[in-house]
Structure formats: structure tokens, C-alpha cells
């Protein structure tokens, strides 16, 4: 048991290390993603100014800009990663090694969250400085708890999708590309999710970013009123979602590993 735990932690550490430091080696990647995030945020802030909405919308957009890099990291850095590893020819090696696939994906998530944090904080910083957005720090502790639970739930969903995407190959890659923007819109990254209406909101609530962002806005933007639920309920819902995703992810990974070993096909490139 101790040996297995040690192996799990070592694998996690090894994969997280590559994700954190590998991404930091190239300064252009970090700078470009911060600039890209900043431009998206600028677009929506000026759009709201054109529409003549209140100043609280700027704070809401800046928080959306802070969370968006995490969403993109979950989609492109975790969900599609096993498929990408297969295409690069690494998945075979990973599956024959004694290292558990789940540790690999958890390490990927931890590393991904940490290296995305730098970019997200930079976007937040520029948003606050350039657009003079004010946040209240009265509930900062709770906001951090909500943020961490949101990440737990988001990356859990990413791990669920990684098995699915691996199983479906190129179809899934295209699907990720297809759903990226609509999911970003549905999760209320740049507007209050409450305006989606009950039907769409029910669907959007399955994306952890939706409830996480709504809770963060309640805790950090004092004048934010169009809420979906009270932030405590949203925190509870995120926790439950995260646990459900963890169970599904664990089952899905076992299934994929079994199928990969049985058919000896799932791990081959361009299949």
C-alpha cells in the first residue's frame, strides 16, 4: 500500500514538474497567453461600455478573464492530453510502465493549474490596473476556498473527458474545438449566468466554472446582484460535482486502461 502511494506521488510529481517548468522555459508562451487573455478581457469591457451597463460589469469581466485560462487549460491541457500523448507515441510507454494513469492525470492537473495560475494572475493584475476595477477583500478567505473547490471540480471534469477523448480520437478533438466557445459563453465567463434562463442554466451548471464564477463574483464584486444561487449553496454544489467527477474519472480511466491492454489498439498513433 505504502509502495503504491509512493509510486502515485512520484508519478504525480514528475508529471506536474514537466507541466510547470516546461511551460516556463519559453517566455513567449507566457507573454502571449497573458496578452491574449488581456485582449479578450478588453473586448468585453469596451463592449459593456458601448452597451452602457454599470461599472460592476468590468469587475465581472475581469474575474471571467481570470478564470478563462483555467477553463482553456482543462480543455486543451488535460481533456485532450491522453489523445495527444497517443499521437506523440508516448501513451504506449505510459501504459506499460508501472505508474498509474490516474497519477499521471492528477499530476497534469496540479501542474496545469499551477502554471496557469501565473497567467491568470497576470491577467487579473492588468485588469485591475488598466481598468481600475475594485474588488472587496472582506470575504477573501471564502473566495479562496471557492476558487480551490472550483479548480478541483473543473480538473475532475477534465480527467473524465480525457478518457472520453482518447476513446473517440479525432472526433473528440473536433468536438473540443466545437464546444470551446459555446461552453465559455454558457459558463458566464463574460456575463452573469443568471440571464441564460432556467433551461440553459441547468445545463450550464454542470460546467463547474458557471457556479464557481458566480460565487466568486458574489464574494468579490460588492455590487454584483444577478446571482444564480447563494454562494454557500454553489460551494456545496461544486464540491458534490467534483466528487462525482472524481468517481466517474476513476472508473473511466480503468476502463480505458483495460481496453488499451486488451485490444492493443487504443494506444497506437493515428488510429
Amino acid at each position, binding site marked *: 500500500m505504502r509502495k503504491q502511494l509512493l509510486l502515485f506521488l512520484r508519478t504525480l510529481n514528475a508529471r506536474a514538474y514537466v507541466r510547470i517548468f516546461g511551460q516556463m522555459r519559453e517566455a*513567449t*508562451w507566457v507573454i502571449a497567453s497573458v496578452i491574449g487573455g488581456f485582449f479578450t478581457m478588453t*473586448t468585453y469591457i*469596451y463592449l459593456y461600455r*458601448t*452597451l452602457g451597463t454599470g461599472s460592476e460589469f468590468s469587475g465581472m469581466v475581469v474575474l471571467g478573464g481570470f478564470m478563462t485560462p483555467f477553463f482553456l487549460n482543462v480543455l486543451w491541457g488535460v481533456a485532450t492530453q491522453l489523445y495527444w500523448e497517443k499521437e506523440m507515441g508516448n501513451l504506449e510507454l505510459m501504459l506499460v510502465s508501472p505508474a498509474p494513469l490516474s497519477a499521471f492525470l492528477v499530476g497534469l492537473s496540479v501542474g496545469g493549474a499551477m502554471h496557469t495560475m501565473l497567467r491568470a494572475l497576470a491577467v487579473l493584475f492588468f485588469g485591475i490596473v488598466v481598468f481600475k476595477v475594485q474588488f472587496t477583500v472582506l470575504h477573501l478567505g471564502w473566495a479562496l476556498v471557492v476558487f480551490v473547490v472550483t479548480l478541483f471540480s473543473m480538473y475532475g471534469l477534465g480527467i473524465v473527458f480525457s478518457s472520453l477523448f482518447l476513446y473517440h480520437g479525432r472526433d473528440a478533438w473536433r468536438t473540443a474545438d466545437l464546444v*470551446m466557445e459555446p461552453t465559455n*459563453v454558457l459558463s458566464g465567463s463574460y*456575463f452573469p449566468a443568471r440571464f*441564460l434562463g432556467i433551461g440553459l442554466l441547468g445545463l450550464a451548471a454542470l460546467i463547474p466554472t458557471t457556479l464557481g464564477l458566480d460565487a466568486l463574483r458574489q464574494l468579490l464584486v460588492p455590487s454584483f446582484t444577478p446571482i444564480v444561487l447563494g454562494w454557500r449553496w454553489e460551494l456545496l454544489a461544486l464540491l458534490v460535482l467534483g466528487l462525482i467527477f472524481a468517481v466517474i474519472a476513476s472508473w473511466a480511466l480503468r476502463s480505458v486502461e483495460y481496453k488499451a491492454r486488451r485490444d492493443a489498439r487504443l494506444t497506437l498513433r493515428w488510429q
Partner: protein
Amino acid sequence: MRGFLASMYIGLQIESNWTRKWVWLLYLAAYPIGSFLAVIVLYGVFGKETGLLPYALYGTIFYYSLSMVFFDMAFSVHDDREHYQTLKYIFLSRTSYLVYLCGRAATRYLIAIAGIVLNLGWLVPVLHLPFHPNWSYLAVGSILGYLVASGLGLMVASVFLLTIKLDVDVVDALFGGMFVLSGALFPPTAFPAVIAKIAEFVPMSPFIELMRRAVSGQVLTSFLSTTSTLELLGRVALLAIILFGIGSILVALGSRQAQRKGYIDVTTAF
């Protein structure tokens, strides 16, 4: 010409052969929705009074058509070199790399246009968008738009040929900036005066405004309103010649340098 058509065919295969034809047709129709969904939600909820929905919707849709071209051109360098590992074979073939890139991007552009046409089929009646198309402006504008986008895409592709570490985030940042300034989503008159002036010179701005007028038959806002439609067409044509010319030269230089430096078959797993 044979090389161009063969490249278009390869482009079509890459885009479509991952699934059944009917699923791909659904995908073709659904894909552009992501580009304008935010516009419908935001202008539908907060901007009903402004009357800017047609401006933003047409602007976003036509920006999308350009973005498909330059993203595809830039990404295809990485894709062919790293993922499919076929870049070296393309260089060995008789078709020039410039023709190959243009052929692939032409397919992407036609697919984007098809998606736009399918979506305008329901957007115009449902959202009561002004629709009085000038077909000649639309046809000429579409061809010039392809050349403008290709010119920009070729410039980025030439840089990608000479580096193995640049990520597509760079393309996102570059064209994200152009998206803000081009006035696709809202009139750049919302910006401070200096930036609003700069916005008029962003390569996509005249194309997007030209296509807006060509499809709606109206000048929808004060942005570029003092410029006549024919003048806009002239500006887009000039931009197309300049950008495509520069892009072609840069790709030719980039290809030669990349071969000399051995960057054609380098794989890094980045």
C-alpha cells in the same frame, strides 16, 4: 493550379474525413455558432436598445471567416511538422509550399463561408437582421478577404517555419488584438480617439465594414461612415495586394531558411 487543387483536396480531407459525411455537415453548420453566440446573448440581454446587434453579428461572422484562414495557415506548419510529420514530404514534392498553404486555406475559407451562409439562413429571419445583399460586392469582397487573411496567415506561417518553439498562443494574442481593434464586435468609436483612429487602419476593419454593407445594404454605425463602399473596396483590394505580396515573399524566404537550418523535420513534442 494542379498543386493548388490537390492542396485544397488535402485540406478537405483533413477537415472532413474524421467522421461520416452527414455528421460533418452538421459540424460545418454548428461550428460558426460559437463565434457569434456571445454576441446574440450579450446584445439580446443588454443591448436591445442600442440597435447594434446587426453591426456586431455581421462583424463577428465575417471576422470568423478571416480567422479560419490565418489560424489554419499558422497552425498547419506545426500540424504538418509535429503531428503528421509530413512537412518534409511537402517540401520534397513539386508543389511549392506557398501554393500548398494557399490551397489548404482556400478550403478552410470555403468551409467557413458555407457555415456562414447556412447560419445566415436562420439568423436573418429569426433576428430580423437587415438583409439587402449586393452580390457583386459580396463576391469580390469575399475573394479579396481571402487574400487579406492569407497574406496575414503567410506572414505568421513564415515565422513558424523558422522557430520550433513558438506556440499558437502567439497567434491568439496577435489576432485577439486585431479583433478588439477591427470593430467586429462593437464600433471602435467606443475607444479613446487615438485608438479609434488606429482601428481604421487595422487590416481587417475595411473588409469587415465592406462585407457588412454588402450584406445589409446599410451603413450601420458612424465607424468608417465617411468612406464610400467603393472606396472601401479599393482599400481592401490595396491591402490584399500588399499583404499577400509581403506574405508570399516572407514564406519563400522562410522556407529557404528553414531548409538550410534543418527545421523542416524537427519534432519537439511541444
